[in-house]
């Protein structure tokens, strides 16, 4: 196995694009090394991207947060202002593994590992973040929801790397939240995950919302009908009932050891209600 830790994105994408065999990006390694240990993947080339400064930085660009795809969970959680602006995203990051895992794990890795149960991704999608991608043919930007296409599968072309996440400028009275259901409170994988981000006007009417549902399909779902149930309402009980219904209707889970199909559909509605109430309360305070 060849190991490289180049200092620039250009060098990293060139290495990945030119690799003849199996190549993998190493960010935090909390998924990749597990896969290597269990012989799910035996890379010929590993490109460690942690020496690339722009992939580690959390910066404000003209009022918009850009988070390097290789910034660790702990670095994100310790960034006080990012926490204040995007609490829903931090809700998700905080639930990934243990302190040890979050000391290494990254949002870019969580996205590109492409698990439908990834905890940070529904909240990042709900936030309306864009993935900045670097590749052998230059750079492009796509909505985060277009990256994961199935368990372990992404839409990235050979040689492409998610370099950073660009979050939109925050409107006043906006709030987000992410909740998941797990049998244990820590160190567990989401049975269902629900991320929401919304904006209220001065009278408390919801003017914008985005909703993403995790662990109930082969990929993380954007649920437009759930967002529509909120927009134009004061997020009253009636709107919440419609939201719950839309979330359950969108869920198309499988039965597995972590939960039955029926249970997951039910829980999708419960989490929709609870997370949206948290997001609305945060929006009212913000």
């Amino acid at each position, binding site marked *: *196995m*060849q*190991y490289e*830790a180049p200092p620039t994105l250009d060098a990293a994408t060139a290495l990945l694009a030119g690799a003849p065999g199996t190549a993998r990006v*190493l960010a*935090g*390694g*909390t998924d990749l*090394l*597990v896969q*290597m*240990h*269990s012989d799910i993947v035996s890379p010929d080339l*590993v490109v*460690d991207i*942690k020496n690339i400064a722009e992939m580690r930085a959390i910066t404000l660009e003209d009022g918009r947060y850009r988070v390097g795809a290789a910034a*660790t969970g*702990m670095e994100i959680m310790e960034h006080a202002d990012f926490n204040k602006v995007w609490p829903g995203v931090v809700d998700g990051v905080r639930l990934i*593994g*243990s*302190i*040890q*895992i979050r*000391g*290494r794990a990254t949002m870019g890795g969580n996205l590109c590992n492409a698990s439908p149960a990834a905890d940070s991704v529904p909240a990042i999608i709900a936030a309306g973040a864009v993935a900045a991608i670097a590749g052998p043919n230059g750079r492009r930007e796509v909505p985060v929801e277009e990256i994961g296409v199935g368990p372990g599968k992404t839409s990235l072309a050979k040689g492409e790397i998610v370099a950073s996440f660009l979050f939109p400028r925050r409107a006043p009275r906006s709030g987000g939240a992410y909740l998941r259901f797990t049998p244990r*409170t*820590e*160190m567990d994988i989401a049975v269902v995950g629900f991320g929401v981000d919304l904006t209220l006007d001065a009278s408390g009417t919801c003017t914008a919302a985005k909703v993403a549902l995790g662990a109930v399909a082969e990929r993380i779902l954007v649920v437009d009908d759930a967002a529509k149930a909120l927009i134009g309402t004061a997020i009253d009980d009636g709107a919440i009932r419609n939201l719950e219904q839309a979330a359950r209707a969108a869920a198309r889970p499988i039965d597995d050891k972590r939960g039955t199909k029926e249970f997951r559909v039910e829980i999708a509605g419960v989490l929709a209600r609870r997370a949206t109430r948290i997001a609305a309360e945060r929006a009212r305070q913000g």
Partner: protein
Amino acid sequence: MARKHVTTTVNGDEVDFLCETDQTLLSALRDELQLTGTKEGCGTGDCGACSVMLNGRLVCSCLTLAVEAEGKTVDTIEGMAHGEELHPLQRKFLEHAALQCGICTPGFLIASRALLERNPDPSEEEVRYWLAGNLCRCTGYHKIVEAVLDAAAEMRGR
């Protein structure tokens, strides 16, 4: 392929070793540097027995490549006591009988020290959440949590 030469700082001392590119930091510590205090439990980041500090961050050394330690600092259980003088956490683990078989203990101590460095006065709940990534199959955790809280109180008193 030729083994990689890695220079790193372990417990304050500059060391170097040769390793395979796919070798874990855990394996390099144990097998190349003979620092066998760091234990392997699960090898998948679930149990925390292999916890070390990498550049001041609590991490699982089983999920870190040895080559990633190049130019960094690594702190292991071997650096916790000062000569014969135990760290307060180590003393309190003994006083509270916060271990039985001992395999998880180095990881718990490293993780607990990382907590107390950030938060010298944690609540019981904060201790339990911080240590959620460390598994112990002997003690039932209660004595471990008591030992950490007692060590924190003693360290604050000094």
